[in-house]
């Protein structure tokens, strides 16, 4: 299905851009932006609908979607919240590439119509909205942060012990990494593969100086860590610029290699025990 939405707004008829009060609007560029937006539900007809939207300096794709919702097609479904690249709600595929609609500037895209489609790796609900609930199931399957039973609070932790965890805390759970990962989007293995987002979560727990659980075996077996072939697409699309592959997935693969593939480490453990991570966290003491 390819139809054309009504484009009746001012600014599209060749006249100079003016505001709703009839005065010149310095924000309007005078350009017309053409968008091909996916419309449909799983049980209904699906296809792209073409809309034309007046261009505004610095506008992002979500601005154009809002314009369509307010002026051209009020039942267009799109998920969004903060419009500041912090809530992770407006994930979509823009010109075939996963990205946040609120962070994708139209003047950075190539000339020509802009295609906006829902995330391919997840089941469609309606238009640009997908069902990402599988991610929450995976999250529940990962044992949460667990400290030693006798490790009371407050804790005093050295900065060096938690520096590398800050990067993982930047994740906004937009699931773009889950969407772009070819193991999910092409091979449909999300039922046996945690995916980049949850490897980041596991890594943040495994590297935490106060956590006492070991999740590497679970991540290897149930999480399907070995499915990942480190092609780094997750890192490329991450809007928070988290080095997902280098700092989370590869360190997890290395922890698996420690146990199963390194003859030197194996011999060392047999002779001396695990001398790396067997030490107890610092004894808690009152702050100050």
């Amino acid at each position, binding site marked *: 299905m390819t139809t054309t939405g009504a484009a009746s*707004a*001012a*600014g599209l008829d060749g006249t100079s851009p003016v505001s709703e009060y009839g005065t010149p*609007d*310095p*924000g*309007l*560029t005078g350009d017309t932006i053409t968008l091909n937006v996916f419309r449909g539900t799983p049980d209904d007809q699906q296809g792209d609908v073409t809309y034309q*939207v007046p261009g*505004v*300096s*610095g*506008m992002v794709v979500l*601005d*154009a979607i*809002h*314009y369509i919702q307010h002026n051209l097609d009020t039942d267009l479904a799109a998920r969004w919240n903060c419009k500041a690249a912090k809530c992770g709600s407006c994930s979509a*595929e823009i010109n*075939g*590439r*996963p990205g946040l609609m609120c962070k994708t500037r139209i*003047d*950075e895209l190539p000339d020509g119509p802009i295609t906006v489609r829902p995330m391919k790796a997840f089941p469609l609900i309606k238009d640009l909205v997908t069902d990402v609930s599988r991610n929450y199931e995976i999250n529940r399957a990962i044992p949460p942060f667990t400290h030693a039973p006798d490790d009371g609070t407050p804790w005093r932790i*050295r900065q*060096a*012990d938690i520096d590398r965890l800050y990067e993982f805390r930047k994740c906004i759970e937009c699931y773009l990494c889950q969407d*772009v990962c*070819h*193991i999910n*989007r*092409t091979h449909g*293995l999300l039922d046996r593969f945690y995916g980049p987002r949850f490897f980041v979560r596991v890594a943040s727990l495994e590297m*935490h*100086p106060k*956590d006492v659980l070991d999740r590497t075996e679970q991540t290897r077996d149930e999480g*399907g860590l*070995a*499915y*990942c*072939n*480190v092609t780094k*697409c997750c890192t*490329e699309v991450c809007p928070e*610029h988290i080095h997902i*592959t*280098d700092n989370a997935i*590869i*360190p997890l693969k*290395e*922890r*698996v*290699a*420690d146990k*199963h*593939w*390194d003859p*030197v480490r194996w011999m060392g453990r047999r002779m001396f025990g695990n*001398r790396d*991570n067997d*030490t107890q966290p610092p004894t808690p003491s009152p702050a100050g």
Partner: protein
Amino acid sequence: MAQVTATPTAPNAQHPEQTVLQRFRRDQPWWLLPLTVVTVLGGFGLYVLWTAFIESPPGSVNHVSEWGPYLSPFFSPLIWKSGPVSPAIFVLWSPLIFRASCYYYRKAYYRSFFLDPPACALGEMRHRAYHGESRFPMVLNNLHRFTLYAALVILGWLWYDAFLAFFSVDPANHGHVWLGLGTGIMLANVVLLTAYTFSCHSLRHLVGGGLDCYSTARLGMARNGAWRALTKINLRHPMWAWLSLFSVMLTDVYIRLLQHGLFVDPHIVF
């Protein structure tokens, strides 16, 4: 009127976080990078086979690429020079498997040779069951750790070769300091190989990445410092991978040119 609102900025302003290289790559067709990688890696593989097992210039013993104080990295350490096969066979397996199982090269050849995927968010041409690195033969990529140990030993030999390249082997000036263009090439090569090896993800993990709590581990803070240092060069691991690949090949080409007498090594001896 338009409902959209945004802070007016310069038209077509580029995103400040996009580098020149990222903008260049964004504007290129998706197949350009895989084609380049296939061409370069394939060419390198063919060159290695040629120089290690086929090329045999006049005066060369068992295909060995050496001239004056210079020894090609493909043959170092030189084991059983007069044996029945090229001595490269005793050495090459280690750096080649080290590179083949390197996390960066894995990304490069999965994308380029196997098109798995050819580029991000692009459909794949292979639709049979996907197993990633969970089954043979790709599961052998986990041997990267093992080949790292071997690569570190060979790296030590290459530093020794670079050291020897500073001393003349000419009988008239034996033992005198030799500073030639080849000396500089061999030194640059071993520096780049060191950068590549020390930016390895496995080494980064071994020195400290595998620790959960630095402050309580034995030598924990020293290992944290080492991990931080390696993390800095690890950020450029792809760059070191390519530069060291080219430098190894260039070093061998240079020595082969000297062997054939097609080039005279400019040098001073004192």
